[in-house]
């Protein structure tokens, strides 16, 4: 609508990511590199997906089941890339630990690992927001706006910005949960993450129904809230565990 509105949409979808970046990631160069690497991963997975689906596009928008297949295959592929990302990270962790031993006489702490996971997740989330939302926002800097038939409550740009914000939260924190689950071998968490991803993607299918976005978007945010809470619980548990461990070791020292 105007430059101000355009910037507003960009900030809606990327604002929390920007604040996360500035407060946590910008200080540590390695995390910036992790962010860029995970963005690249997500982009490559998206290109492969679009290459695979190119022959079938454009989908007939009347029926909804082609979209279901699209989403299930896409989410499955992205979860597979998450696994590959984890494996690569494990290899890198060995090198990092060796480096840390040499320079600092200590290994990577669990906060370091969580920060790397956060940077990885943020990379996925930002790449999603950029490719699905921000790259389409160029017309919004101009004088007009655009409404989609199925969701005529608000401009298309606003809806897509809100949805991409929800997905950014889900991607970021599910990566933290996933890395922790792979590290500790917690099967429940490992399975829940892909399920949540598929659920969230399927929620957006509700948007296909006319007027459905009024239901789909709040449901998406409920899922985002669930992911946030789960991540918080996990972090809290680890904090208390580490706190107890340190207290125990210091007790041993004293006595």
């Amino acid at each position, binding site marked *: 609508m105007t430059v101000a509105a355009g910037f507003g949409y960009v900030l809606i979808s990327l604002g929390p990511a920007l604040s996360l970046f500035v407060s946590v990631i910008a200080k*540590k*160069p*390695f*995390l*910036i*590199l992790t962010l*860029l690497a995970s*963005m*690249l991963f997500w*982009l490559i997975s*998206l*290109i492969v*997906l*679009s*290459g695979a689906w*190119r022959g079938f*596009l*454009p989908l007939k*928008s009347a029926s909804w089941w082609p*979209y279901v297949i*699209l*989403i299930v295959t*896409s*989410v499955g592929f*992205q979860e597979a890339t998450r696994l590959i990302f984890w494996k690569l990270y494990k290899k890198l962790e060995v090198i*990092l630990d060796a480096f*840390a031993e*040499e*320079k*600092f006489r*200590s290994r*990577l*702490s669990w*906060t*370091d690992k969580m*920060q790397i996971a956060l940077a990885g997740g943020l990379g996925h989330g930002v790449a999603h927001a950029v*490719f*699905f*939302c*921000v*790259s*389409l*926002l*160029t017309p919004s800097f101009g004088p007009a706006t655009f409404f*989609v038939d199925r*969701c005529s409550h608000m401009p*298309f740009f606003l*809806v*897509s910005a809100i*949805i*991409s914000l929800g*997905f950014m939260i889900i991607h970021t924190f599910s990566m933290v949960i996933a890395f922790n689950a792979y590290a500790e071998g917690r099967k429940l968490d490992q399975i829940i993450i892909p399920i949540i*991803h598929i659920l*969230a*993607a399927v929620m*957006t*299918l509700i*948007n*296909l129904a006319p007027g459905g976005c009024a239901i*789909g978007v709040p449901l998406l945010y409920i899922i985002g809230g669930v992911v946030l809470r789960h991540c918080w619980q996990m972090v809290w548990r680890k904090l208390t565990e580490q706190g107890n461990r340190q207290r125990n070791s210091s007790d041993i020292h004293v006595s």
Partner: protein
Amino acid sequence: MQRSVLDSLGVEIIGVISPVSICMLLVVLLVSTLSPSASDSAAAAASATTAATLVYDESPSDPPGRRLAGALLNAAAFVALITAATTLLVVLYYYRFTGFLRNYVRFSAFFVLASMGGSILLSLLRAAAFPLDAVSALVLLLNLSAVGVPAVLSPAVPVLLRQAYLVALAVIVAAWFARLPEWTTWTLLIALALYDLAAVLCPRGPLRVLVELASSRDEELPALVYESRPASASVSHAVAALGSVELQPVEPAPPNPTLSNRNVDPDRTIVEIESLEEETSPLVPNEPSSSGSGDARQQDIAAEREREREGERNQDPSSSSSLPGLAFESDAFDTSRGIRLGLGDFVFYSVLVGRAAMYDLMTVYACYLAIISGLGCTLILLSICRHALPALPISITLGVGFYFLTRLLLEPFVVGASTSLVMF
């Protein structure tokens, strides 16, 4: 908070990626704000004849076969021109015309800032309808250009100013190059990547000869080099490295357009690029000193060397400068890894991203990620290979590949999904 390995790892890489990103961002902004307005005015509608369009002047109405053939001819002519210019450079350097070369760098820096920068400033003022009168604008422009000359060449200028001027030079040259027609731009980029590969790695390549000449003389060539953390001002010459010597050939001076009204035809502005010696400076690896180096600061080593470069040497990829920059890194001294990138690398990365910006923002992001990852790969290779490497090939290949993949595959997929509000 205790220091962790995450704090220190990768500082130099970020020190290179940040200016490259800033340069690309500025070029994208310039291209996207100026090209719609430029297409309106009649002067811009007339194609600028540059050295790159000598053979074939592309116009959108030609059939694809003719365009491709014409673009290839253009690229071949351009690369031939650059090879000739670089060879001239090598010859001049061999016969020790260093003073001439330094003055040429100064002149070309001033000229680029004043004339090409001036025309961009004019377009920006026109686009923004900014109320600045001609006299003030002229004074401002001349002053800025005059400050730019010592800023890029002399070591006594504050680092931030020098880096800012180098980035500004790269932005101006890249914005100029982005005006080339589309097919010519893409073939030119690929041809330059191949040329860079050949010039730096072949035993008889001009850049490699330059690098070896400079290393054999133990000299530092005056060059436009981007350094993220330059050496202190007191040391003006590089010290021969203990082990790996890293040379960074700097790119030769940016094209010097001389406006000459050869043609009586008022619609065409012939911009002649006199010496377009674009060399992409190879990245010079700077080896991190291993643990023992702390103590080994070296008096003994200092005794051996005549001149020592203090401080940390970072390698910056340097860009265009008419003289190759030679950076000697000593293993024992360097405690940090620095990277120098040639200004020509800046220019051509930005040209790629600028051309991607003319299509859509999605291609911009994809090409940005591709170029940055190519740069990262090159830097990693640099730390393994320990000798001068061309910075263009991997990034340009990835960038061009991602551009076409995004344009053909990604965009229908993502736009179709996103406008139906189906996201994953």
